[in-house]
């Protein structure tokens, strides 16, 4: 790379001005348009900046991606393609895929031709991600999949999924799992969107009825699925916490559509109220701290000063900062905020989604205490027990 960061910035700025439309206060995200924008980025050499060149990326540094995101702030960007395709599934493929799999999927994903989603959580599962009941059984030429998944982001608009299934019931739970790459639109797969409190239809639940998968669908090792899932969760924590180097384009979506706290203060005529200013600043300070923490952790992970599990710090803090903003929003919106409701009341309704989605904050606290601070693991009643003997509770 003979180009330095500032030169890159100027090149990006020029290209963006020439190629992308300015962001507008759009409504729902249009997936077709998203794919098309991603294609444009790809052709312009601005897609997958931190992915290796041999898999369709640009082989640049996280600093380049940050610079690009700063420049792209005012432009329409295919932000929804970040989660989970570009920031979670892509990097996991990079970490755990075979050379053939990487060659087949990554360039297509970076070019916006192929969107991924994750089939991990199950209706009975909660925090116990490894307690998978979905089963894959060997057949003559591959596998037969049966079961149900839930909380899958954008499963109704994605093309492929990473699906975690139990392939051995006679070993402890982590040892009998396998991760598969699965085409979503095929016989036996049913996808239902879930209607959420905040109006979102982002999540889906899925049912698998004798779905056939080829042998080549296995990602990583057979019965080595938990190792793949661990990488996936690592990338998810980084992405949810706002510290992934693979994020291309930020914020935009919700922020332009719903307005900021600053907008609320101004539009409700409270810009001169000391109290409103205090609430506004409380939220802003937490966002500034969050950015500082994300940068600091990313750097210290790169420097090897902290273990991967430290990414849970940012997952925890992100929820805290976002929820503080929502709480301030409800307070500042006053009576009208709920009797003639705007976006803040809806955001408040779905407030806990921020500390549930992408792994609950309770799990993050367990991870920090046990894997960063080295405190004793929580006793689990299923440790070392063949999975078929584990108690699943009176309701399941």
């Amino acid at each position, binding site marked *: 790379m003979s180009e330095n960061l500032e030169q890159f910035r100027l090149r990006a700025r020029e290209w963006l001005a020439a190629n992308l439309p300015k962001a507008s206060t759009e409504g729902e995200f249009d997936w077709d348009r998203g794919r098309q924008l991603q294609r444009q980025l790809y052709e312009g050499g601005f897609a997958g900046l931190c992915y290796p060149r041999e898999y369709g990326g640009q082989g640049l540094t996280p600093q380049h991606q940050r610079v690009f995101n700063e420049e792209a702030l005012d432009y329409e960007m295919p932000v929804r393609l970040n989660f989970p395709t570009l920031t979670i599934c892509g990097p996991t493929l990079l970490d755990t895929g075979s050379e053939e799999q990487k060659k087949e999927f990554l360039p297509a994903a970076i070019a916006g031709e192929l969107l991924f989603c994750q089939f991990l*959580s199950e209706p009975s599962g*909660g*925090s*116990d991600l490894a*307690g998978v009941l979905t089963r894959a059984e060997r057949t003559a030429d591959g596998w037969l999949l049966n079961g149900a998944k*839930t*909380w899958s982001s954008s499963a109704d608009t994605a093309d492929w999924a990473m699906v975690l299934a139990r392939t051995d019931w006679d070993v402890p739970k982590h040892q009998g799992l396998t991760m598969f790459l699965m085409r979503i639109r095929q016989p036996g797969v049913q996808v239902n969107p*879930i*209607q*959420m*409190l*905040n109006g979102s239809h982002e999540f889906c639940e899925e049912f698998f009825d004798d779905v056939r998968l080829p042998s080549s669908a296995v990602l990583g090792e057979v019965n080595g699925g938990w190792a793949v899932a661990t990488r996936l969760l690592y990338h998810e924590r980084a992405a949810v916490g706002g510290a992934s180097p693979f994020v291309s384009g930020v914020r935009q979506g919700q922020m332009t559509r719903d307005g900021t706290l600053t907008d609320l203060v101004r539009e409700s005529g409270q810009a001169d109220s000391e*109290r409103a200013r205090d609430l506004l600043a409380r939220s802003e300070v937490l966002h500034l701290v969050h950015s500082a923490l994300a940068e600091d952790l990313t750097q210290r992970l790169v420097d090897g000063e902290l273990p991967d599990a430290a990414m849970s710090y940012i997952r925890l803090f992100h929820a805290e900062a976002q929820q503080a903003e929502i709480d301030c929003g*409800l*307070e500042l919106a*006053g*009576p*009208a*905020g*709920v*009797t*003639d*409701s705007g976006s803040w*009341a*809806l955001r*408040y*309704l*779905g*407030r*806990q*989604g921020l*500390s*549930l*989605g992408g792994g*609950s*904050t*309770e799990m993050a*606290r367990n991870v920090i205490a046990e894997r960063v601070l080295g405190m004793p693991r*929580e006793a*689990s*009643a*299923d440790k070392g*027990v063949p999975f078929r003997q*584990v*108690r*699943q*509770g*009176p*309701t*399941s």
Partner: protein
Amino acid sequence: MASATARSTELRMFLDTTRKFAEAQASTTQLRTWWREGQGLDRPWWRQVTELGWTSLLVPEEHGGGSLTGEALLDLFALTEILGELAVPGPTNVLNSVLAALVHPKAQPGVDVRWLSELMAGERVATWAHPPATSLSAQPGRDGLLLNGTALAVEFGAHADLVLVRAATQERPVLVLIDTHAPGVTVRPTQSIDPARPFADLAVNDGRGTLVAQGPDVEPIVARLQQVLNVLQVAETVGGSGRVLDLATQWAFERYSFGRPLASYQALKHRYADLATHQHAARAIALRAARAVQDTEADAALLVSAAKSYVGEVSLEIMQDCAQLLGGLSQTMEHDLHLYLRRAMLARQTYGTPYEHRQVVASLLLDREAAA
């Protein structure tokens, strides 16, 4: 938490009937149907409800009402707590509060006879325009008063036949019942976060009203109405948060993670302990405020504002932490939690926010201590 305020056999029977009816006729399934149909109030259902006596407790016997224990507001508290627990819809709180104003000793004689029976029987519905959001002038007209101005964010404003408002003539404050069916009243429904508790903005242009009180009689009646309304709001809210906490507690016993029930995880146990403490505290101050208003204690205003600000904030904290403990399901429309959460959000923000009520508390405190 079960309402344990059954201070007499009559009251206990009354509460049992209420609970049975509400479970059968006003279940959350029913509520969801109304939502889908965009109905804020089902009139035939409401007339059925009034037969159960939900609207007669604060009205004296000579006008066809009556308390079951001689402590009418505490009876109504117990009823309202159950309605909150079962997320029963309807204008019970605001209507009972208007009735409390109409039967106030300082209300104009004759007002009561004219409307009370219709309101109690569900033939008409009345509501109240919260003064800070109301700006209305009144002048004498041919038959009654003529009103002009606006009243914003009126609960059930698009469904009510009558709206009680505080207005002002050139000389003095007046308390007036506006007839929404008479000419001059324009109603704009707004977007309530709880479709079962709708609000509307009213524009009044030479609207017709009946005088309820005037001059120095107005403020005592308004104070009484607002105290009753806030007491009913906190009663309903603690009923709701208690129910949500029950759901979440039950979940802790039934849901297994890593081979053992959630209820066995100490980090969660401690949170349930905090939640239970706050729920008890919220109910205690709500009940204490109700008692103070019932007995017209000197500290009634202080206790009502304390209850409103505490319950307003802590109920939402309880519900959101329960949502966290319930996990992802709590974030779906399918789960009942949001029915309670929406109502509690409304209760927190209307008829004085926690912040506004704390300003009242501070005034009472600093004034009282200055006087002492």
